[in-house]
């Protein structure tokens, strides 16, 4: 019998949103159109138009060893070209940001190849070959995984995910890499905090109703209460109980 992934338990909208984000058969909803050039600016790894710096010669030129694994795994475009490994890192507000650290990691692992995600409480990083990163970043920024006000693209000094929001609804960022101006959010610094020569518009913040309907985090004050999803809690307790019993006496 073929395995059909279920992408997690739960009957709440939060659980459903999590499954939709993870399931690669569900198309992510495109909401905004930040250009490729602007994404390169926010990432700050190379100048727009600049050739991709390389970490090694293209695979076709460097002579690959006779390796069965290499025959099985098709290299990504970035790996083929010998690109450097670079990153994009997000800070997601706990006030209903659409994606959240572990959720991002799970989603990326289901949807993309050749990636190395890292998950923390206040930030989530994904690293991969540079040209692959730019494609993935376009998805992560232009779709329903992103909100201009509640999600920050931050390489360092990420403090803010758990803080109250600013009066204008923006998540705190001590570097103020992006500002709300004329109803849209504009990046004035790249993700590491280097000032940009031009402002990069990433669109209008989503409204509270949309955020509540699309978030993947439980929150009893501004969103969906965790306690209300009994199936979710029961499932976690079941996993914990099985792990405990197996650790105690691995015979069942």
């Amino acid at each position, binding site marked *: 019998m073929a395995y059909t992934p279920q992408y997690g338990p739960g009957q709440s909208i939060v659980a459903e949103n*999590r499954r939709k984000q993870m399931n690669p058969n569900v198309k992510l909803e495109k909401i905004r159109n930040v250009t490729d050039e602007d994404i390169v600016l926010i990432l700050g790894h190379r100048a727009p138009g600049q050739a991709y710096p390389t970490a090694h010669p293209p695979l076709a030129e460097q002579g690959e060893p006779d390796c069965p694994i290499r025959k099985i795994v098709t290299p990504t475009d970035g790996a083929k070209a010998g690109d450097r490994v670079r990153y994009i890192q997000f800070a997601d507000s*706990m*006030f209903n940001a659409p994606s*959240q*650290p*572990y*959720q991002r990691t799970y989603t990326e692992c289901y949807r993309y190849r050749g990636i190395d995600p*890292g*998950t*923390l*409480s*206040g930030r989530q990083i994904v690293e991969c070959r540079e040209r692959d990163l730019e494609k993935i970043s376009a998805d992560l920024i232009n779709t329903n995984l992103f909100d201009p006000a509640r999600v920050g693209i931050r390489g360092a*000094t990420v*403090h803010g*995910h*758990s*803080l*109250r*929001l*600013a*009066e204008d*609804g923006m998540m*705190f960022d*001590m*570097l*103020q890499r992006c500002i709300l101006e004329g109803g849209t959010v504009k990046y004035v610094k790249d993700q590491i*905090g280097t000032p940009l020569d031009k402002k990069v518009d990433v669109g209008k913040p989503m409204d509270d109703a949309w955020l509540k309907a699309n978030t*993947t*985090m*439980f*929150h*009893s*004050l*501004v969103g969906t*209460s*965790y*306690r209300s999803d009994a199936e*979710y*809690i029961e499932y*976690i*307790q079941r*996993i*914990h*109980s099985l*792990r*405990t*019993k*197996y*650790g*105690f006496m691995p015979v069942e």
Partner: protein
Amino acid sequence: MAKIERAQKLFLKALKTKFEGDVADTKTGFYNFGGLNQSPRKKEFMEASKKVELRRGISMYDPNRCHLGGLPMGQRQLMTYEVSGTGTFVEGDDLHFVNNPAMQQMWDDIRRTIIVNMDLAHQTLQKRLGKEITPETINEYLHILNHAMPGGAVVQEHMVETHPSVVDDCYVKVFTGDSELADQIEKQFVLDVNKLFPAKQAEHLNEAVGKSLWQAIHIPTIVSRTCDGGTTSRWSAMQIGMSFITAYRMCAGEAAVADLSFAAKHAGVIQMASHLPARRARGPNEPGGIMFGHFADMVQTNRKYPNDPARASLEVVGAGTMLFDQIWLGSYMSGGVGFTQYATAAYTDNILDEFTYYGMDYIKDKYKVDWKNPSPKDKVKPTQDVVNDIAGEVTLNAMEQYEQFPTMMEDHFGGSQRAGVIAAASGLSVGVATANSNAGLNGWYLSMLMHKEGWSRLGFFGYDLQDQCGSTNSLSVRPDEGCIGEYRGPNYPNYAMNVGHQGEYAAIVASSHYTRNDGFCLSPLIKITFADPSLPFDFAEPRKEFAKGAIREFVACGERTLLMPAR
């Protein structure tokens, strides 16, 4: 699981003092606090640095230039902290162990302590040398030892000695479970179990110690600071050997001295911590080797407040996170400065306290555990369902409190802070309900899984590792996989790497004994030794002592200003 009503919110006073406006608001202002100038302590640092720079001609603390290339901290409100259970508000900087002499002294008092059995030496003296041992000879020996232990000469001519004012924290007392013997020893030298402990605990301790006689030795702070924890047994054994020679008029070179030395250095020695393997490379009496059961015995709050096992356990959390997170992992192992904030979350602003007392109310309401009258009688059988129920409810309540009070979420701005606090409340609640440390640990791990799935985040890479595999080892007792809680420690597999766990684990172990009103958790000897009112650090009130250190009212030992010109 079902939420229970609890009107009292212990953290509200702290939140209202720390934050302006409604503590339940979701929005606030930023970027207008004046940066570092909002903090009196940071301003003091800047002024102090200027003086240092003038004196030495080398630049130092310069946050306006060095922090993020010219963007100083303080774009958000720089918070003060209330040390839990004390009502004292302090600046975060004052809870870094470098700035807090009480924290240093707590660790000094552990590292410089060694317990040495006297029965072995007495048998050697009696059986091998035919010497008579009486209360009088023991008293004479203790006089000599209290002269020798700080660094006084007892046998040789023309010896150098230490200045008493520099080593005034060094002394030796004895204890025994034999009340008759204890009565015959001079009061100044005795740790009187019957007077120091509540009756039930004293009975338990006296029974465990029996007729044996033990020396509780504290070598000078300045010695263990200059050398290391491995020095403690050596320093003490040297002075013990010389004192026996003097007290019992032995020949300094006779072979029987070797027996006394062996007893004082090895056979009769109880170290506070075992030595560590080469990759962590520390001698005995260093923090990484302290078993959680032993640490739970060092903290004395349950002796002073036997009817509040929650409070006593919270004091273990405070003391444990300070030692294991701030000093052990934060400095010994990583060399970092920022670990302080992982630890302080667990003993400031009464947040963990509130979550834990919610657990107490819950176990009383649902399981009829009369936690204010600790005894083994009303404890709940630790089934998996019971653990899941208590830890699950305490976790959900704690998460909801963070959600309902956004200023509290802002207070504990890091996931590891919240994870440690929520899981600690869960583990302590299970520990108090069941009196089973492994059940408590199992509650901790369920809490971690529930937390991670609810908020889709937990701590950080390594922090999460031990929690994601913890369910599996929490009831395993196979070598290298698991152990009963009392025998686990900072060097236990999976525990050796990350902050925000070890102090809480020690407290979970403690809670499972405090709830029974046990005299001790793992070692009656360690419990009695740290009940000593002569110790500079009061192990019954660790958080209060830290607060005193923070507001610069704690007087530490091991000072050498006496020996230097005044500045």
